């Protein structure tokens, strides 16, 4: 009974929101796409109209990434992404804090089968490379630093499943994580002191669609990828460990 009631409440809530904010048959409260801010991202015309942007031809755009979403994430609204990275960072810190430090790795109850044990090592490299591809190619195709990092972490997960233990490698991950994060912020500060704005795209943007095109974007994606990868791996690792009894 109680549950039905609550379900009803939720329905009323959904109806309320939908009815008064979303449902808009006459387009009264909906801004047409053409007038939204995001149009400027599509046409790369935030700081001046460059005319029609053509794949493989346009050069010296304010942002040379073919992937507009990536352009927004890493360039136009890169500050958000810094925050995003920070969220992940603080989550991993939180997991670390809650886990109470480095304990012994929890042994899985079952022994991994032969196929898993060796298959994991075999797949590990392939996944790793795929992850790297993801963040290197993020400004051109769907993907980017976060999926790339997650894929890298997935490769670590596969290794765990295969019975590997991370051991002392975590230290290195920590350093990687810290360094990548610091470099990200530093790149922003570099922009601030060399070009006048925090996180300014200081590198030249090449031709739209080329690998070396979007200025600092690929670099940042690499940093993000590394950082996210090491962070997620770290989180995984913390979950796999016992608490240090202190």
């Amino acid at each position, binding site marked *: 009974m109680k549950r039905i009631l609550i379900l009803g409440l939720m329905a009323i809530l959904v109806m309320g929101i939908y009815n008064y904010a979303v449902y808009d048959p006459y387009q009264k409260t909906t801004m047409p796409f053409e007038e939204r*801010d995001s149009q400027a991202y599509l046409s790369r015309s935030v700081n001046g109209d460059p005319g029609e942007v053509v794949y493989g031809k346009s050069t010296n755009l304010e942002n040379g990434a073919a992937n507009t979403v990536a352009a927004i994430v890493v360039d*136009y*609204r890169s500050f958000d992404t810094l925050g995003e990275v*920070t969220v992940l960072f603080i989550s991993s810190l939180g997991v670390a804090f809650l886990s109470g430090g480095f304990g012994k790795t929890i042994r899985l109850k079952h022994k991994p089968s032969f196929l898993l044990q060796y298959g994991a090592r075999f797949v590990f490299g392939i996944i790793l490379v795929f992850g790297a591809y993801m963040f290197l190619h993020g400004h051109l195709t769907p993907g980017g630093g976060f999926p790339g990092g997650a894929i890298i972490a997935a490769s670590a997960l596969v290794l765990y499943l295969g019975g590997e233990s991370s051991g002392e490698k975590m230290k290195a991950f920590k350093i990687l994580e810290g360094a990548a994060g610091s470099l990200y*912020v530093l790149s922003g500060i570099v922009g601030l002191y060399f070009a006048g704005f925090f996180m300014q795209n200081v590198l030249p943007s090449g031709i739209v669609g080329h690998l070396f095109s979007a200025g600092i974007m690929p670099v940042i994606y690499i940093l993000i990828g590394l950082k996210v990868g090491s962070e997620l791996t770290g989180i995984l690792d913390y979950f796999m460990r016992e608490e240090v009894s202190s």
Partner: protein
Amino acid sequence: MQMNPVLTIALPLILAFTKIMYRRIANLFLVLGSLLNVLVVFFIKEGQYLMGGYAPPFGIVLQVDAYALYSLLVLNVLFAALTILVTKKAENLTSSSLIALAALNGLILTGDLFNLFVFLEIAAIAAIIIASSSKRYHHAFHYMVASIIGSTFYLLGLILLYKQYGTLNMAKMHELMLASPGGSSVAVILIFVGLAVEVKLMPFSGWVKGVLKNADEWIGPMIGAIYGGAMMIVMGRLFTDVFVVSPKVTLLLSILALVTLVGGEAAAYDSEKMREILLYSGVAQSGLEILLILNGYAALSFILILSNMMAKYVMFLLSGYIVNAAGTDVLGDLKGLFRSNPFLGFAFTAAGLSLAGLPLFVGFFIKLNILYNLMMSHSYWLPAIILITSLVEGIYMLRMILGLWQTGLEVQETGIQIISPSNIKTKYAVHAITLILSLAMVVFGLMPDYALDLAQKARGNAVADKPAMMIGMKGGPGQ
């Protein structure tokens, strides 16, 4: 020399990132970072600061006006003071604290609604981690659930606003909303609810009790004072500078705020424990602050937020030390505690009296001006309710303070103290900082004009139709 405000965000972040490589000197990082931030704040000039060189409606901007600047100053100074005082507690939380600082600065500075959401999330997770250091994990989890619901609502409202206005920039949003405010109420309500969870507005503040009733000298000032203040400043920013709220919504939300004010004071009156009293009174105060914000008393709400933040900071800090020394915060067991610690007692008393709005302390003039301005708009009911709640607040505040000064019956009869937390073991820095803060309350209480003028300047133009008329010691209107 001029500094870019983004440094107040970037510096702590970079220190937090690098800190994990240098575990040994973690504390140094924290103290250094927060002090550096204070230094930076002094060199920030007002203005608009672009991120990545993209012009405002499209790129993210940091909006530095007097409002942001003063809040930033108070927040960073309080934070730095805390890091100096409570190094031991913060040892494992260095990075989280630095990130919390960055996030709070970001919250205050940012001029972009989605960026605000990101900082909100960072701040929330940092706060949860800080809160979990009291080892009450289910309470911290409660906080987490609440803040996730809050941020979900915030984002939902935000995206509805984006759908309607096609922008995320605060300034542009404000202009568009001014032009056509219709249809945005649901989104505004959702955003309000989302933030209300963080500012401890009452039906949404279930988490507060669990987190703050066990707060130590680190969690208390952090979550109870600094976080609450910063979130409230965000609230003030959004609901005066950005959103155009319809009168009906204002009324509904004001009722909510009023319920919080009354209920919070009643709950505090009911409590017998020091920290519970403080937390409930914080809830009630946030009700009052929101009431002012919603009704357009921007300058008043601003100065109220700042002074409450300072007072709560002192009180939570000292309550943490008291609990450390006495092992309890039941008021009945703490009788006569301040007898042997007169300076801490003085600081606590000044903060409490200021919070209750008694003269000689800055709280009085703030309350006076609130009432005066509310009355100027010819409403007698609201001031009456505020006065009644102030009465309740004054009573429990003084009950608490007097209880801490007054020795119990047993003590008077036998001369032996039952519990002997006679000397709360603190550093002299605690004495110094709490005394400075409480003296500041006295000084501003005697010369409120300066503070009132600053608030007026910072927020005087925020709401055109309700310019606050400030009564200071120099006199006011009609003099």
